[in-house]
């Protein structure tokens, strides 16, 4: 059965994909849907949802459109999620691959280094990094990447360690391929499915982390993000619930969708684990 057929059999995964596609479309079309900057107060302050048809989700204390904020926030969340994950995967795969393939001292050294990062609570570390380098979208993305690579490194190391002793890798050595080439063309393609699955879940975690950082006031002040919206409105929860409920739901739904996709990918890529249903 093809990968896509297997994926399509998973209803949850399809729903997740559909939601994510909608989020992506909204994010991409934000400037068309809402040509005015989401920071510009264009309505009366604190309009409730559906009070004014021009602002179906209401406005905040400065009269900014919540719906526009959500649309632009999707861009930030996805951007940070995807890029930080990409960077983390890059670091994790490089270190994990080298450690797992070469083993011995190199492995020891790299894993000890990884341990340093794992010993420090990831979120606390992210908070410190962002605070130190001042919160910009770059520093936030990098901080999330820096705290999320260790699990990838461990995973990749494990995969490489076990794949390295597999016979096709031994065969590649015997036919005279060089180490880097073996890692890249023989082992990596075989380790890629768990990496993809992990990466998809990391995107979700990164979005959550960004929102938590924003909640603590460590978001990029020039980028409208969901976490920022909640952070800015959380003290008004009881006065103007819509300010924090809508972005909260947006995070929940998006992260949920990505998790569903991740599970779908996992099931589709590891067919031997299937047959659980029914």
């Amino acid at each position: 059965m093809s990968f896509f057929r297997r994926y399509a059999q998973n209803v949850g995964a399809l729903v997740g994909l559909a939601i994510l596609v909608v989020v992506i479309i909204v994010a991409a079309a934000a400037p068309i849907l809402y040509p005015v900057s989401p920071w510009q107060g264009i309505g009366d302050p604190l309009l409730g949802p559906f009070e004014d048809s021009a602002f179906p989700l209401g406005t905040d204390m400065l009269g900014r459109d919540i719906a526009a904020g959500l649309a632009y926030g999707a861009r930030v969340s996805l951007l940070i999620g995807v890029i930080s994950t990409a960077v983390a995967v890059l670091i994790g795969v490089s270190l994990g691959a080298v450690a797992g393939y070469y083993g011995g001292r190199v492995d020891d050294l790299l894993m000890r280094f990884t341990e340093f990062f794992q010993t420090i609570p990831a979120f606390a570390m992210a908070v410190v990094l962002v605070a130190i380098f001042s919160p910009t979208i770059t520093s936030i993305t990098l901080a999330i990447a820096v705290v999320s690579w260790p699990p990838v490194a461990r995973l990749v190391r494990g995969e490489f360690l076990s794949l390295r002793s597999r016979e096709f890798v031994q065969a590649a050595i015997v036919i005279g391929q060089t180490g880097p080439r073996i890692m890249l063309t023989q082992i990596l393609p075989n380790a890629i499915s768990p990496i993809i699955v992990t990466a998809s879940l990391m995107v979700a975690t990164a979005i959550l982390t960004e929102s938590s950082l924003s909640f603590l006031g460590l978001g990029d002040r020039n980028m409208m993000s969901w976490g920022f919206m909640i952070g800015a409105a959380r003290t008004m929860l009881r006065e103007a619930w819509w300010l924090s409920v809508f972005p909260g739901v947006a995070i929940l739904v998006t992260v949920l969708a990505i998790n569903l996709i991740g599970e779908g990918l996992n099931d589709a890529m590891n067919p031997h684990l299937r047959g659980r249903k029914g």
Partner: protein
Amino acid sequence: MMNSAAPLLEVASLSIPLPPGLDREYAVENVTYTLNSGEILCVVGESGSGKSMTANAIMGLLPSYLKPSGGRILFRGRDLLTMSETELAHERGRSVAMIFQEPLSALNPLMKVGDQIAEVLLVHGERDSARREARVLDLLAYVGLPDPSNLRYAYPFRLSGGQRQRVMIAMALALEPAMLIADEPTTALDVTTQAQILELIRSIQRAKGMGVLFITHDFGVVADIADKVVVMEQGVVVEQGRAGDVLNRPQHPYTRRLIAAVPHRDGQNERASTIGEPLLEVRNLSKVYRSGGGLFSKPRVVRAVDNVSFTLRRGETLGVVGESGSGKSTLGRCLLKLTDVEGGEIRFRGQDLVPLTPAAFRPMRRHLQMVFQDPFASLNPRQTIGRILTDGPVANGVPLVDAERKARDLLGLVGLEPSAYDRYPHEFSGGQRQRVGIARALALDPELLIADESVSALDVSVQAQVLELLQELQRKLDIAIIFITHDLRVAAQVCDRIAVMYRGAIVECGPPSQVFDAPRHDYTRRLIAAIPGLHWDPRAAVA
């Protein structure tokens, strides 16, 4: 409730359909056989023949997606298929017991073996812990395990493969069931251990008068223990009868083919070991594994390869035979520098390979190639056959066009369709994959080929074909082969000389006739004595 007139077990027209979308409709179709008390019935067949399926059906251990669609399984006249799970659980372990192929994974790693045996007694109503303990000690002693009073506190990982299987047998015997199902119980074991376990099963069966359903792929084992034989192919019983009849006068072509493929000594293959010039000279090669060293304790040292010396000539086949842990595979890895070496020399065409750095050795690798054991693990599942075959030449500087042409030629040489070039490994059977593995090695025009258990994972008929291919290629290309195997019969069939390894050292080396007929070392003698079906001549059966 017991019907003493009925046979112990009667499988009648049993059919189990496979889920849709697979290559055949039924896992087993219309299978019928009977087993009486005091009898050993061997179900024999190759992988995918459905031989284990009936056993699992009897125990009610089929995976949830498989449900028998027809037939009956009568145990003492009662149909097991209509029993509830509770009723079945009541019978399991008490009336019917089962042992499996992999004793390590079949035992709970976190439970002491004594407890695992005692659990059978407990769940079947023995509430008195002192009686349970006494029985456990009895059983452990009965299956021939040393020092039962200590051993019952051991965890499975502490035991050897043979000991684990003995624990499994003790567990199966705990309530003295009327029937024992043994699903390939010796396949994962060394040949000498296998002989002991077979002997144990046979003696218990006789002593207790049990009926044993014994599933195996090995006709040698069948020859050793079977009273009755059922031969299965593709889910269907093709032939059954008394052991002597089936083994010596096989009727069905498939049975005949299987028996013909059983490896055997082939005296005609023996050539003078002086032909050709020396290609590889190994002198005093040693390899030591250290493990578990700490601050205060000395590391455990295993001399995996201990002072090994031999010479290999062009066009010669040297068999390296030994049981697991004998160091035979490590020797192969040392020769290819897949692992570093403690001491000694490996002179290839006069040059010592030992001191070479990996980078310096890489250009020479093309001369020394290897065919691996596992046809599934040795091919990169993400690469096409073409890519697999061209990677080596390309890595050694051959232009891609030339490499591709050569690869296509090789496909023909190893007997594969040209269309195989663009397909992926999973589209091929085990034997075909092993042919690809051979082609990959040959793509580099090697002078030395190391075949590490290259046919062990294959079904016997496929094994015969691959062995034939290797021999034919060797004749054509004049390659020297080091043939590493645990199976003396296979070595005897293809090798010019045989080196027997035991605990890292070569204890005996010589032409098959000498090793077989006049073994000098005690270990060799034990090894030969343990060959299953030693006194049965398959050639005579199909002659």
